């Protein structure tokens, strides 16, 4: 069973519950976003799925390997990029990578060309004999990514992969992530960079100890019933008319556009009727996609309540 299958997963540390009742599936070839504020349980979830922590409840398999088993076969198929690069400063880039090749019992003659390919792709070609202690933050991050990929993992967990990278390097990493997914690997991306998540992930899960929402990014952005209305002239003059409606508590006006948040999608015709009644010439009224950031913050607010 490839991909990731999680059912009712939970973790307690003594009296404290870090994660509870998580359920989701990630397909092979999918880039899945795991979102949540600091302390929401993302890292704990990733640690359970990489065999570093044993779940307190529920079950999960990663590429067919149960996470509550002895963990060794599981750790052979996963690659984990931690938030901190975690490299050995006195060792060279090559020695750092060779160490992980040895831990994965790889044939170095075969594994090194793959490592070299990624080093070159991330702009580290020719730097492999230099001690890592002299690398910049971005170079260290890129080397840590290469280390994550050196054993050709089927499932890759990336925690803030573009942290500390310049825009060009971040683009290279994003392209590499998309390419790895296209090769059939399952990728879980933990990031606070929501623009990056929107760009890379087909689906996301928002967690805050428990699962707050899960679904395709497009659907989540559509959720919450917003309506984009284009009118003739300045939209601002119709804003007050709409805010007086009980089902449209939040209205934004910009140029000729009105963004109307609705309590219920069924009120969309009422908004149009109200505008027409107020003398507006309505050109279009379409369900709006909200920025992921807005959806995310709203979910967290609801989760807090």
């Amino acid at each position: 069973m490839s991909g990731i299958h999680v059912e009712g997963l939970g973790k307690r540390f003594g009296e404290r519950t870090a994660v509870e009742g998580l359920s989701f599936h990630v397909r092979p070839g999918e880039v899945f976003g795991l979102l949540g504020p600091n302390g929401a349980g993302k890292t704990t979830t990733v640690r359970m799925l990489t065999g570093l922590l044993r779940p307190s409840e529920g079950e999960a398999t990663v590429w067919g390997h149960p996470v509550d088993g002895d963990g060794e076969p599981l750790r052979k198929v996963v690659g984990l990029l931690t938030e901190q690069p975690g490299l050995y400063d006195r060792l060279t880039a090559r020695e750092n990578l060779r160490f992980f090749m040895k831990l994965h019992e790889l044939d170095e003659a075969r594994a090194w060309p793959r490592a070299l390919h990624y080093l070159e792709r991330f702009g580290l070609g020719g730097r492999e004999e230099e001690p890592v202690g002299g690398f910049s933050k971005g170079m260290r991050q890129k080397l840590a990514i290469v280390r994550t990929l050196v054993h050709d993992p089927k499932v890759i967990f990336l925690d803030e992969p573009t942290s500390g990278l310049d825009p060009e390097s971040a683009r290279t990493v994003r392209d590499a992530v998309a390419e790895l997914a296209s090769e059939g690997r399952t990728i879980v991306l933990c990031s606070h960079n929501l623009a990056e998540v929107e760009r890379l992930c087909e689906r996301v899960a928002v967690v805050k100890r428990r699962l707050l929402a899960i679904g395709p990014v497009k659907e989540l952005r559509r959720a919450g019933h917003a309506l984009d209305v284009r009118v003739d002239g300045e939209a601002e003059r119709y804003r007050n008319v709409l805010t007086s409606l009980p089902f449209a508590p939040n209205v934004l006006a910009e140029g000729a556009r009105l963004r109307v948040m609705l309590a219920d999608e069924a009120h969309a015709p009422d908004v149009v009727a109200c505008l027409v009644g107020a003398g507006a010439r309505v050109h279009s009224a379409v369900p709006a996609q909200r920025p992921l950031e807005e959806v995310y913050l709203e979910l967290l607010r609801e989760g807090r309540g």
Partner: protein
Amino acid sequence: MAFRPRRALAVFWKDFLDLRKNVGLLVSMAVLPTVMVLVPIGVVWSYVRTPNHADLRSVALFYDPSLPLGASAARFLIDKTLTDWFGMFLVMPVFVPILIASQSVAGEKERRTLEPLLASPVTAAELVTGKSLAALVPAVAITWVAFVFFCVGVDVVAWPLVKMPLMPDALWTFGVFVIAPLFAFFGNGVAVLISARVSEARMAQQLSALVVLPIVGMVGGQVAGFLKAGLGYYALQGAVVLVLDAILLWASIRLLDRERLVSRWG
């Protein structure tokens, strides 16, 4: 979970490579053997320089009131120094692995390298084995090299008086090749255990180093005349340390539990 020697050797290789590039640690490791070799040579030389000094006899009689009148007090004190110093020499195989193992285990936490390492297929037993080898091999090698210098130095210095090689004798040969590795294993085990519980390499070193105090204390007891050192005495120490080694090995593998380490330090 099968034990894969290749992975344990990978940990050993990495730690050994890291040690070779750690100049500060290498200097710290060189100081102790230098002292351990030079001090007894200096003491032997002081006896050889004035073998008929009246005070030497008084000192010798303090340790052995039945010392025959015709016996050389200087020779007696040289033999006693060499026998007693072996106890002090054992500080080296205990202390050197403490320096290395504290760096290699607590150092992984400090450098935030622990989580990527634990996310690899390496098992706790392989990790403990690899890290222990990386501390034990240099410690035992340094002890043996220091022993060679010690033997040569003592023999050269003592020759004018005794006209024969004193070292290596049976006690030192047995001690350095059998007891010293057991003590090295002990120092390493203590350092691994403490490193698994604390967050900083320096704190791990300071706490682990406390285990040398009983050893120094026993040597103090020998010098004060309360304890009489000899082959049997050191063999008994070795047997006690062997039992402690087994306990430490078991505890180290248990304490290097992946979940415990990650949830506390990862």
